[in-house]
């Protein structure tokens, strides 16, 4: 038996689905979080002995799809013949929700209405007569609160009992010509009239929708093009400051101290064992993985704060304020959503791009969205901010907003290459009501991500660090590399050719090149590899649990100045993301040309930013350009020429594709 969960965006479908199935699908206090359908068995406590599959569908306002995700929902309920439909209705906005309900009721499939978010109605003094509503809609109606599992048992039991019966519709669409837009509009107005009559009969509101509330006043400021962006900058600065300069490091210092003590203990136990074993276990596995896990508190605090922002409804306001800018640079208003999601992880952000209708806008967003530093890049930022910038919170904030600026610049460039002009595109997003964020939700979200982070550290990163340690310990004849002859190791000989290319960027040494390369497997690997190749833990006093020697010692060991450290950080942040994210890009773009274009653009962007930071930073701090200025400038010039050439080629094909009479004209001229 299959029960479909359908309703308007942000009505609480996925929260209800999670509660009924025990799943942990991504939820958010804004529309458009669910982009595809999901299926899972209902928990036994709800389904009893029957096998009932719940199908969570993306939000839809009507059966006539305006967006691709609405298309998924309308196609599913029309063609997949579910045994029953649970229509989740946002009780705080009944008049808008019932339009879709009346359409679902026409399909003949039994419908059960879940009047969700009734707790908010209670607070606002809105009363809905459910018995009357049930009679008017000709289907059972239940008051539910998905977040508290309230009313779910009775609702789902009724849906199961009604499965297979025939639903009688309270309103039937007139037999009109569906190709006639005016007739369809008139019919929709009639349906709205029908819905409004029902709402008038069953709902009593204390606060009328037309009244301006305190929430509306706050929204006026936060969605203002200037004040909204300033507020967003301030909020993000605060998030990064708390997670990476205050609370995060406080916990991380304590955790790192314990990890280092454990590492010292392991190394001590292996004093009389072969050096390779000690290097492999103490430095490679414990040291490398420990270096990554040491940053876990920073990542957890950041995820917690982002979850609070999402849950209270702020991120929806950010989308509204960014929308006009995104449209202006040639992206869709919907491109805002992947960018916001990208702060957590690039893969769901790339997946969220599929809701963008226009192919070029969708591909451009997919190409650019990973410029926003994801959670995996946080350890890299934190390591460099801590070692070179005294743990300053501005490093993260600058990295984030530089990522945003690169998205805008990249979008403008893609617009120039593809030769498209500004066009109007529509982005409809309801601003959810402000609410006190749920600490439980934020904690759960944080713990899920922390678990995933630990799994990644204990599997992929552990194996990578072991391989790096082995490659660093042995030369090509599998002889242990002598002290002082590290340049003969397998790792050094593989990474050295790449290191030459990085000289203009200020970090042309094989250790840093190796760390950047392993970063393509998982970005946290940059930290793990640096910890292994430089034995970074040597800089930590295990008694005092603090860093010794300061930035200068670390800088001397790594051969970096503050300027080159910043260049290296930006190189790792803005070059292509990890392979998994590139795979997701491939899947969403469905074009090899665009995929390679994306990889090339990201590589060129990371290289150029690092080059500019290193060369101009050195010019400012030391009064001269850094080493490798000329070859670096030639490389950057080559990127520019390549982009111009690609642009010309693309536009030439564009003309060929749409030219109608040129061939005929040429033939006539030749004949004459």
């Amino acid at each position, binding site marked *: 038996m299959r029960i479909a969960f359908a309703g308007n965006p942000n009505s609480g479908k996925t929260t209800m689905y999670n509660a009924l199935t025990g799943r942990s699908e991504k939820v958010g206090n804004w529309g458009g979080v669910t982009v595809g359908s999901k299926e899972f068995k209902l928990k036994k406590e709800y389904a009893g002995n029957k096998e009932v599959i719940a199908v969570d569908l993306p939000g839809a306002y009507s059966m006539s799809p305006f967006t691709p995700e609405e298309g998924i929902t309308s196609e599913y309920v029309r063609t997949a013949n579910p045994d029953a439909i649970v229509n989740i209705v946002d009780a705080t906005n009944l008049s808008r929700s019932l339009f879709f309900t009346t359409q679902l009721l026409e399909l003949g499939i039994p419908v059960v209405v879940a009047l969700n978010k009734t707790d908010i109605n209670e607070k606002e003094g809105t009363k809905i007569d459910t018995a009357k509503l049930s009679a008017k809609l000709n289907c059972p109606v239940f008051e539910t609160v998905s977040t508290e599992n309230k009313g779910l048992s009775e609702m789902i039991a009724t849906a199961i009992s009604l499965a297979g019966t025939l639903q009688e519709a309270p309103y039937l669409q007139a037999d009109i010509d569906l190709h006639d837009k005016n007739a369809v509009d008139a019919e929709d107005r009639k349906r709205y009239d029908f819905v409004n009559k029902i709402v008038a009969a069953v709902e009593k509101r204390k606060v009328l929708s037309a009244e301006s509330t305190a929430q509306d006043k706050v929204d006026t400021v936060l969605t203002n093009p200037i004040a909204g962006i300033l507020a967003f900058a301030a909020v993000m600065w605060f998030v990064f400051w708390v997670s990476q300069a205050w609370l995060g490091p406080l916990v991380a210092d304590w955790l790192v101290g314990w990890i280092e003590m454990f590492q010292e203990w392991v190394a001590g136990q292996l004093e009389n*064992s072969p050096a390779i074993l000690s290097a492999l*276990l103490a430095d490679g596995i414990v040291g490398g993985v420990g270096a990554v896990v040491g940053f876990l508190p920073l990542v957890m605090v950041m995820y917690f704060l982002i979850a609070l922002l999402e849950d209270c409804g702020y991120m929806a306001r950010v989308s509204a304020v960014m929308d006009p800018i995104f449209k202006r640079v040639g992206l869709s208003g919907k491109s805002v959503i992947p960018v916001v999601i990208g702060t957590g992880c690039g893969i769901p952000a790339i997946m969220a791009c599929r809701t963008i209708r226009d192919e070029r806008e969708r591909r451009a967003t997919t190409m650019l969205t990973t410029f926003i530093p994801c959670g995996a890049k946080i350890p890299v930022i934190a390591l460099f901010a801590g070692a070179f910038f005294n743990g300053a919170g501005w490093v993260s904030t600058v990295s984030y907003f530089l990522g945003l600026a690169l998205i805008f610049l990249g979008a403008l460039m893609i617009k120039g290459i593809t030769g498209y002009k500004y066009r109007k595109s529509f982005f409809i997003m309801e601003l959810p009501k402000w609410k006190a964020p749920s600490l439980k939700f934020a904690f759960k979200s944080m713990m*899920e991500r922390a678990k*995933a982070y630990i799994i*990644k550290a204990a599997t*992929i990163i552990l194996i990578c660090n072991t391989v790096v340690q082995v490659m660093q310990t042995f030369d090509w004849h599998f002889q242990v590399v002598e002290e002082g002859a590290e340049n003969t190791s397998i790792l050094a000989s593989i990474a050295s050719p790449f290191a030459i290319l990085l000289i203009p960027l200020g970090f042309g040494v094989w250790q840093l090149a190796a760390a950047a390369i392993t970063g393509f497997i998982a970005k946290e690997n940059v930290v793990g590899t640096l910890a292994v190749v430089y034995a970074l833990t040597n800089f930590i006093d295990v008694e005092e649990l603090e860093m010794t020697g300061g930035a200068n010692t670390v800088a001397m060991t790594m051969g970096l100045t503050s300027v080159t450290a910043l260049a290296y950080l930006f190189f790792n942040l803005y070059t292509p993301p990890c392979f998994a994210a590139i795979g*997701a890009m491939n899947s969403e773009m469905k074009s090899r040309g665009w995929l390679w274009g994306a990889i090339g653009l990201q590589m060129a962007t990371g290289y150029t930013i690092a080059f500019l930071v290193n060369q101009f930073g050195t010019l400012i701090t030391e009064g001269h350009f850094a080493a490798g200025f000329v070859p670096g400038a030639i490389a950057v010039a080559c990127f520019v020429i390549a982009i111009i050439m690609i642009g010309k080629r693309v536009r030439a094909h564009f003309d060929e594709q749409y030219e109608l009479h040129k061939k005929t004209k040429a033939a006539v001229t030749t004949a004459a």
Partner: protein
Amino acid sequence: MNGATVIAVIAVVAILFFAARYIYKEKKKGNACIGCPYSASCPKHQQGISCDMPQDNK
């Protein structure tokens, strides 16, 4: 070979074996992004297809 060395060798082999086995199992299940907090939510993953596989043009 002393006791600590034997334990260390066993520990290294066991850690690497379990890590590699976990990755292999996840890959076999179609999860291309090990550790990704959204891999379970990925609609393609639920259908047994990994995230980086091309999908049809529906």
